[in-house]
């Protein structure tokens, strides 16, 4: 922290960017205790959830059992049951797996679309950029949540796939915009110009020269997006516009709390899911923030 206030006249001798970004990122995470704990927690939860869910039968868990309605936690059911007599623990595991999976899927899809779109827009600039960014601006202004809900409600043959496509369709603009503004700066730098004089094609410059310099930004943004997407999916499922009924998600469990009775008296149904979402999002966010610090030299701690 001391170093950033220093006014030296040899600042140009200090390397501003390091190529081996990964080692810095790793060092930053290890140094940052909270981020390290978050990372470990994340790895544990993920492997636990995916591991256990291999042994669980989703169909069995979502089958209604009228003899076991609203059972509190006990021997038969580790975390009790819901209004349909379904095992909360099983739903929790499957739900977390589903939420995580769709979060990752949507993050990857929006990431690919956004990065490519932003790269093209920023690299070519001019009129192309102008038009492409107007489109992004428009999408960004839309009342995104409502439009997604409307689409979820009216799409015929609604499935997990269509849900993730709808989310992707309205979520790629943020990263596109970010990548575009960075690409716009990078392509003006002499190294990209030099590549042109050395005979490299635009495509080659874009992918092999400019893109590597955006990698840390992409990693950071995607990590933070992952957290946001998990939150968003569970939010939509909470409102009843996320996963279809047969596919439990963390949001589905929370939506039971919209019933005041459940909210007030049957905490075991919704509190574990709430805690799990919080832990997941906090962990992913902490890792993301640590990555951000690692890649932003001004905020770096060491």
């Amino acid at each position: 922290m001391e170093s950033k206030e220093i006014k030296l006249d040899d600042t140009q001798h200090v390397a501003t960017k390091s190529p081996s970004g990964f080692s810095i990122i790793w060092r930053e995470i290890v140094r940052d205790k909270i981020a390290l704990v978050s990372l470990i927690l994340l790895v544990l939860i993920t492997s636990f959830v995916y591991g256990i869910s291999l042994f669980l039968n989703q169909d069995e868990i979502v089958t209604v059992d009228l003899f076991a309605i609203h059972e509190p936690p006990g021997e038969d059911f580790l975390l009790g049951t819901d209004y349909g007599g379904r095992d909360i623990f099983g739903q929790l595991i499957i739900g977390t797996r589903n939420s995580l999976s769709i979060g990752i899927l949507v993050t990857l899809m929006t990431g690919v679309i956004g990065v490519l779109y932003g790269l093209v827009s920023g690299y070519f600039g001019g009129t192309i950029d102008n038009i492409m960014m107007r489109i992004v601006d428009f999408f960004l202004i839309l009342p995104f949540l409502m439009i997604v809900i409307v689409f979820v409600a009216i799409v015929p043959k609604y499935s997990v796939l269509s849900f993730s496509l709808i989310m992707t369709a309205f979520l790629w603009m943020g990263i596109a915009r970010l990548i575009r503004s960075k690409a716009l700066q990078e392509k003006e730098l002499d190294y990209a110009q030099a590549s042109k004089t050395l005979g490299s094609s635009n495509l080659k410059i874009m992918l092999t020269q400019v893109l590597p310099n955006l990698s840390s930004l992409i990693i950071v943004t995607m990590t933070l997006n992952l957290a946001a997407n998990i939150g968003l999916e569970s939010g939509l499922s909470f409102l009843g516009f996320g996963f279809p009924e047969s596919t439990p998600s963390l949001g589905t469990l929370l939506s039971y709390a919209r019933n005041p009775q459940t909210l007030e008296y049957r905490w075991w149904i919704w509190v574990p899911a709430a805690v799990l979402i919080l832990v997941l999002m906090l962990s992913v966010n902490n890792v993301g923030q640590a990555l951000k610090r690692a890649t932003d030299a001004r905020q770096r701690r060491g």
Partner: protein
Amino acid sequence: MWKFIVRRLFITLPQVILLSVLIFLMAQMMPGDALSGLIDPNIDPAAIEQQRENLGLNNPWYVQYTDWITGALQGDLGQSFRYKMPVTELVEQRLINTFWLSVATLLITYIIAIPLGITSGRYNDSWADQMITGYTYIGFATPLFIFALVMLWVFGYQLGWFPTGGSVAPGLEPGSFDYVLSKLQHLLLPAISMALITTVNTVQYLRSEIIDTKQKDFIITARAKGASESRVYNRHILRNSLLPIAAFFGFEITGLIGGTVFVENIFGYPGMGDLFIQSILLRDYSVVTAVVLLFGIASILGALISDIILSLVDPRIRIK
């Protein structure tokens, strides 16, 4: 500056048109007739087709679009087939409720954000900063709907400090002091819940803006002039960092819209967001269309306001 504003308005118009086209297309995909709300979407498709024919709703798309826009411009957003009343009437009271909820939320957002952001940025790396940063991390990671649920559970049900639904206690005479007080009481908990979460963005932004400005060369110039630390802060750092925050104002509106959908639903607060969810569930599509259109226009105007404020406060844009 006028040139900038006029040019900005020229971008706004196509945005509104594009929005209306998008909503029109969405309405076409909905069963029944989402523009007029004259047909029950729950009857079988053949019967819907029959009714559409009878009501003259199968005109070419451009005629339908023009009719709809003309109507909307005159304040006619069709009929709600559930409530059997014009959508405009249905929306009116709800719009007012959501408006007050938003105003309260924005106020609380800034009341929290400005002192926290300033403290955190000015004394960065102090314990106070670490506490505030910790809060922003948690706030950033917490989904609004979970937080709102917990707030309702704790302050509404467990402690009973706030009402757990509605926008006003029944039986009070509109305009009376008690009525206003009850309104305030009803919107306070949702507003606080929303503000506590949305404010973290502003806090973080203000903090990093202040830290950035602190390291600018002109701060050294100010010190070299003999300005005391407090003057350097008040005159140069704060002023320069708060201006972009002012410009954020309009964009907050877009964020609020998403928030009201959750918060109104959880607190049973009869506003636009609640109406939206109810209407979707009731398949009352003309209302859905109207709500999305209104919120879309609000977002576009919000962005417009932000850009105009920015052009007013930043001479680099103002003079172009």
